[in-house]
């Protein structure tokens, strides 16, 4: 079909699979950062200090409404201006982790707010500390309603990793670019990259839905 070269496809497949590994590592590491940082941002927005709440809120809005691509460039190029040299991987992970932590903080916030007020009051009545209230009452109930959003952003971060190619992280698109310009053939590498993305993100979305209903069942909801 359309001059598709199967021999060439098989030849480049190992390189693409290797790059898929890098893509998955980037997505996983970025997501891990986002999960932790997102929780911090969500809790900071619930603090009693108005100034802190306001600042964090504005920060989250700022990051969410500006392009990730620009943020990646910012982190990568601004560091050296002030004498901080970051590798492409490090700056990529910072940028993508930070970007998605803002999205995740909104998911956490929604989850926490979905816990009925009575639960908080009951925890206070039982003389629980703040930490106990969060750990034993609020968070377990917040998780089910947050899971769908968390899953969506896991797939989202995976699909945004190609932007890391612009600072030279050797993920899928970066590799496809390299293969394309070495061989003057773009049809196979770019199409294969598209298919690899589909082959991972579609089952992942399905698995997340299964996992979500499993957790709901486990928590008796």
């Amino acid at each position, binding site marked *: 079909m*359309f001059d598709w070269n199967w021999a060439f496809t098989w030849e480049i497949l190992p390189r693409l699979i290797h790059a898929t590994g890098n893509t998955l590592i980037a997505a996983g590491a970025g997501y891990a950062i986002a999960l932790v940082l997102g929780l911090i941002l969500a809790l900071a927005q619930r603090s009693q200090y108005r100034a802190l709440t306001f600042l964090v809120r504005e920060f989250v809005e700022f990051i969410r409404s500006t392009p990730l*691509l620009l943020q990646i*460039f910012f982190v990568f190029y601004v560091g050296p201006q*002030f004498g901080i040299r970051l590798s492409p991987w490090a700056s990529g992970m910072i940028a993508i982790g930070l970007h998605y932590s803002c999205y995740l903080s909104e998911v956490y916030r929604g989850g926490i707010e979905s816990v009925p007020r009575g639960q908080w009051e009951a925890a206070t009545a039982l003389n629980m500390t703040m930490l106990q209230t969060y750990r034993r009452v609020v968070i377990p109930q917040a998780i089910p309603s947050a899971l769908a959003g968390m899953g969506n952003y896991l797939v989202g971060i995976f699909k945004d990793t190609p*932007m890391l190619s612009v600072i030279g992280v050797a993920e899928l698109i970066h590799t496809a670019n390299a293969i394309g310009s070495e061989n003057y053939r773009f*049809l196979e590498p770019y*199409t294969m990259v*598209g298919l690899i993305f589909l082959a991972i993100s579609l089952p992942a979305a399905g698995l997340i839905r299964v996992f979500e209903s499993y957790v709901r069942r486990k928590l008796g909801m």
Partner: protein
Amino acid sequence: MTIFEFVGQYWPRLLSGTGVTVTQFLAATALGIAISLAMGLLRLSHSMMLRGFAVTYIEIFRGTSLLVQLYWIFFVLPLFGITVEKFTAGYMAVGMNIGAYGAELVRGGILAVPKGQWEAALAINMSAAKRMWRIILPQALVNMLPPWGNLMIELLKGTALVSLISVTDLMFEAKQINGTTFLSAQVFGVALIIYYILARFMLTPFMRWLERFMARKMGRA
């Protein structure tokens, strides 16, 4: 160089870049809305083939990255004899990508219209097309406007990617200026602020206004 001197010197290029970004945004929005409507309606069609077509489109565009789609349209389509100019390829990719997400919103919005409305339209002998156009879609539009606000911000952020196929948008100009001056903090900082202003102080208020306007039109406010 302070940020003010910087803006004073480079504002013409930043402004022209912003102009291109806004044009890309508007073109992609028009295309995105058209595709959302078409695919959202096809997704609800009785014909299994039409439904299958819409589902395939939506899954392909939501399952892969915007960057992959952009490269595919720009580098691979010419191999099939369809050469698209970079400006067109840019808003086509962004619009087609957003269209897939929008289609799900259209579908959800239509399904949220109460069943009684369908029945009433049937009772007064409206044709299917007229029922959709005059009764269902206007109400669906009000239902789906709030999530469209978020999608429009995603769209604006998505247009930054067209810089990677050398469309001279704001992101591209920022990259070029950075390449010649190495004033990374200034140039990327200013670009971030411009994107933020576009999203937060123009797009968001406009969508809020549109929500209120539509609600009033529908006699719901």
